[in-house]
């Protein structure tokens, strides 16, 4: 697959304009995947010409990329794959986009997602599902499905995504690319559509780990416009620490998990052992509860964050209404997809007086217990490994009628989100039918760079 350094060579040998035009042509040629909702063609070409004229420089001068369409960016609407924001024209750009542009990168388009990032297959997009890069009868994964597919199809060398409960890692695994969900607070979320503020993170999907390190290094750091950001701690490590102690999460290797997925993880563990690392099985009993904790806390935060879509100040407004209450109710009914409504209503339920203690408070206490278990393991282990999802990419439509079946697919990615830990998904192998299988590597907070260095040392060629 194409790397950032391949693209830089192409720019040197031709021009930034030629490279950007080629990426745009690829989006159009591969439109059947429905990975891109809108191109930012005009703005991208203007910027490419400026790179060629020597007016824009930097570490990524002329390198095309794509952002998930919940990042505010100039040149096309920011839809969050919803009718609510279908024609919303961003008045500002996300800090992450600004930082990449400051290094000369060129955003060429906005990638499809589950509406408001609610989902794990990109089938909840108001503009149709994205198809898997390897098998078009299968899902792209989600919610950053479009970002994973454009990367896997070599349309661009990297794409930005958001990960609240697995939305970067799972589509990365389903399409055979690298996906990074950083430590909570690593990258500013200013200018990104909020979902669940206590677990929302911004990260990247790339064709290889070195490119992920480069992009994370550029995006990381404190931003006064996102008060949860941490001072920049991300520093690329030339080599991984030797003789690491790594835990293989046994709870994720249960009988219900696809045997081919388990086989790939075991193979990856053996490769780590061959390099002198120790890999041994560990238990995290609280993981059994992680999905239940997640599907209380996250809908609660969603119900609060999505209250802002009221049809008053921006976005869609329903017509033919007489009163203000009707305007809110009709706008929200017509502007949200069913999964948005489901989550908002679950959130309203668990936050209601009378149910608050039994659901929301209990979940936040259980979250503490989950955190304690991870902290205990990280006293002994440098990192933990396991699958990203119980299966490879499933068929389009397979899980759409049963929301819980869809949620169960998040069971291995939500724990790191609830604890705020860095977790990456890197290609580990393929099933017999050729579908990619990713391995998830989870580390203590701020160990992002060491996880990536470890993954780089075992990169699947």
């Amino acid at each position, binding site marked *: 697959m194409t790397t950032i350094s391949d693209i830089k060579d192409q720019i040197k040998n031709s021009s930034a304009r030629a490279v950007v035009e080629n990426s745009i042509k690829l989006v159009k040629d591969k439109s059947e995947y429905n990975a891109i909702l809108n191109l930012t063609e005009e703005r991208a070409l203007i910027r490419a010409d400026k790179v060629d004229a020597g007016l824009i420089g930097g570490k990524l001068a002329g390198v095309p990329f794509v952002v998930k369409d919940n990042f505010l960016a100039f040149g096309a609407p920011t839809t969050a794959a919803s009718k609510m924001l279908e024609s919303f024209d961003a008045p500002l750009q996300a800090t992450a986009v600004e930082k990449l542009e400051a290094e000369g990168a060129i955003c060429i388009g906005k990638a499809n997602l589950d509406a408001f990032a609610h989902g794990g297959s990109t089938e909840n997009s108001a503009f149709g599902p994205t198809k898997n890069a390897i098998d078009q009868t299968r899902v792209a994964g989600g919610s950053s499905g479009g970002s994973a597919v454009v990367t896997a199809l070599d349309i661009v060398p990297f794409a930005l995504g958001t990960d609240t409960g697995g939305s970067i890692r799972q589509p990365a695994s389903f399409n055979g690319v690298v996906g990074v969900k950083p430590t909570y607070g690593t990258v500013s979320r200013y200018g990104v559509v909020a979902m669940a503020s206590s677990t929302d993170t911004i990260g990247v999907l790339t064709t290889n780990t070195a490119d992920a390190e480069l992009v994370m290094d550029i995006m990381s750091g404190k931003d006064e416009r996102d008060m949860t950001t941490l001072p920049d701690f991300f520093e690329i490590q030339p080599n991984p620490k030797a003789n690491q102690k790594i835990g293989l999460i046994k709870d994720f290797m*249960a009988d219900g998990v696809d045997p081919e997925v388990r086989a790939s993880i075991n193979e990856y563990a053996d490769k780590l052992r061959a390099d002198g690392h120790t890999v041994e099985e560990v238990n995290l009993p609280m993981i059994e509860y992680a999905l239940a904790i997640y599907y209380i806390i996250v809908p609660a935060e969603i119900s609060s964050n999505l209250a802002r879509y*009221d049809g008053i100040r921006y976005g869609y407004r329903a017509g033919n209404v007489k009163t203000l209450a009707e305007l809110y109710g009709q706008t929200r009914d017509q502007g949200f997809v069913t999964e948005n409504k489901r989550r908002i209503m679950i959130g309203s339920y668990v936050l209601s007086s009378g149910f608050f203690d039994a659901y929301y408070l*209990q979940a936040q206490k259980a979250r503490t217990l989950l955190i304690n278990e991870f902290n205990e393991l990280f006293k002994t282990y440098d990192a933990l490994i396991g699958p990203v999802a119980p299966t490879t990419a499933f068929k389009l439509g397979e899980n759409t009628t049963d929301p819980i079946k869809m949620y169960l697919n998040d069971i291995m990615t939500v724990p790191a989100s609830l604890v705020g830990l860095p977790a990456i998904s890197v290609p580990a192998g393929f099933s017999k039918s050729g579908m990619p299988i990713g391995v998830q590597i989870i580390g203590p907070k701020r160990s992002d760079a060491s996880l990536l260095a470890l993954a780089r040392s075992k990169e699947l060629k």
Partner: protein
Amino acid sequence: MFLGYNSYMTQITRDDVLHLAQLSSLQLNDVEIDGLQTDISNILGYVEQLGKLNTDGVEPTYQVTGLESVWRDDKVINYGVSREDLLARAPESFDNQIKVPKVL
């Protein structure tokens, strides 16, 4: 029961759904109400397994940054977005104000 689930422990009535919709400022269309009734019952049934966990004396976690009381200087920051920029995005505006239907 790592990858399976028992549900139907919580029964949500049609009235409950309409009440939740009202709390959420959603005027649901009829076709969606039945489906949401089933889905919400099932989801609450799934998350109710937390009830069997003993959390006596455990402090709740509301955020995971480890940051506390993050202050900024008490001054206006220029975000580069003007009043005109923002008003232009409102579905209806008049005389520097956003227009809405009557409240009562």
